[in-house]
């Protein structure tokens, strides 16, 4: 008898329980459907077509003081990529030609090097930092942007018949004449070890240059 009662009660509880779960499931399904099927068109957001001017290319001419040789005129090209307002990458390539060594000039003896070996060329890959950005005030209403920057890099120098690993450090000044034409003054020290006179010597080859570059 007691068993019968228990069975009825349990069945009733089970039935109510399953019913409630059923309702709960039904409710969650309705809610779920609303979440799953949003009727929104995904917009394709396009970047506005703005002309970016982060590249700077130009020519330069200067004086290169080649260690153990004279100071000579140097001609170069440079290209820079401005990554942020603070930092830029720059590639420089320049050519020059050395004359006689100081030794050859003093002794007047036979030349130590062939003419072709006296051709001097280098390239450097640099990272620059616009350390002191500024403005130049010319007239009341006419101001120009300027940057004093520090720059360092590495590359190769082809001189006296071999290529030498070259570290280049320096600084420069860039004056923007308008939005895209600049006037530049640069000083660099191209440092490399060479052993053409029998033992390894570190040479400092200081270069002063000026040039024009264009942003595009």
């Amino acid at each position, binding site marked *: 008898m007691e068993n019968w009662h228990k069975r009825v009660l349990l069945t009733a509880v089970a039935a109510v329980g399953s019913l409630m779960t059923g309702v709960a499931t039904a409710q969650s399904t309705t809610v779920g459907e609303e979440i799953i099927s949003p009727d929104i068109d995904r917009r394709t957001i396009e*970047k506005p077509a*703005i002309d970016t001017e982060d590249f700077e290319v130009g020519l330069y001419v200067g004086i290169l003081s080649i260690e153990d040789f004279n100071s000579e005129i140097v001609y170069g090209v440079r290209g820079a990529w*401005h990554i942020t307002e603070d930092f830029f990458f720059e590639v420089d390539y320049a050519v020059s030609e050395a004359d006689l060594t100081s030794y050859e000039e003093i002794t007047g003896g036979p030349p130590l090097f062939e003419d072709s070996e006296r051709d001097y060329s280098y390239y450097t890959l640099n990272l620059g930092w616009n350390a002191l*950005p500024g*403005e130049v005030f010319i007239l009341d209403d006419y*101001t120009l942007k300027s940057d004093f920057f520090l720059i360092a890099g590495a590359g190769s120098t082809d001189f006296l018949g071999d*290529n030498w690993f070259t570290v280049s450090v320096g600084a420069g000044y860039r004056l923007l004449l308008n939005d895209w034409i600049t006037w530049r003054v640069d000083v660099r020290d191209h440092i490399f070890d060479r052993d053409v006179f029998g033992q390894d010597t570190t040479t400092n080859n200081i270069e002063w240059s000026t040039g024009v570059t264009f942003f595009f």
Partner: protein
Amino acid sequence: MYSSVLNSFSHFQYAICTVVFVMMALIATPAYTQDVPVYSTVVEPYIELHTQPGRSYPVFYIAERGESVELLKQRTDWIKVRNLRGIEGWVHIDEIGRTVNEAGEALAIHSPNLDSFANRKWEFGVMLGDFDSSDAVTGYGGWQFTRNLSVEVAATENFGSFSDGSMITGSIVHQMFPQWRYSPFVTIGGGVRETRPRSTLVGTEDRTDNVASVGGGVRIYLTRKLILRLQYKHYVVMTDRDDDEEVDEWKIGISAFY
């Protein structure tokens, strides 16, 4: 024929190669033709116009809510704008990103962040390091064609006591976790290498060999568009002699992406 072409691979031509990277960077830049002027409208209380593209330049004008400005050009993170009265100034890209176009949508531009790093398309950089116990310098460019895979071209020059050399390699690079700030990668590749014995050595000739490489490393996202890159590569130089040369290379570099 193949090797005779490569034998004339000189210092000058190497320099040209590095210039090619710059050219690649230029080609990779989206070439927008600015025929149609782009306008946007200020919806925040105001935006600030600086005299020059830089955070420290003075603010000389404020464009108020509802004012429309023409977007003229972009330099790094700054956009030059002109309002209807002809006043021109430079506004930070994040402020322009909160203005809206004619359809009332916010402009899809912002300064580069970790998300831009994960979704970069192009990467260019310079690396320095040690190639077989000699100084080495590398310029490289890469194109990311999926979130995980990229192809890279690199020009390396190294300077040893007895020889120096130039190398052009192409490689495929796989990064497992593009969204990580410290993103590891593995790479395999191949190319050609020219070895030039020092002119002080007698009786030796320049030689050109094929190389194969395998390596790995990590790109570390620094800030804005800048990446620090550390990598190791192992090269096999396939010489004409009985034994191939095996060379280890360690490098550190700085790169930028967009």
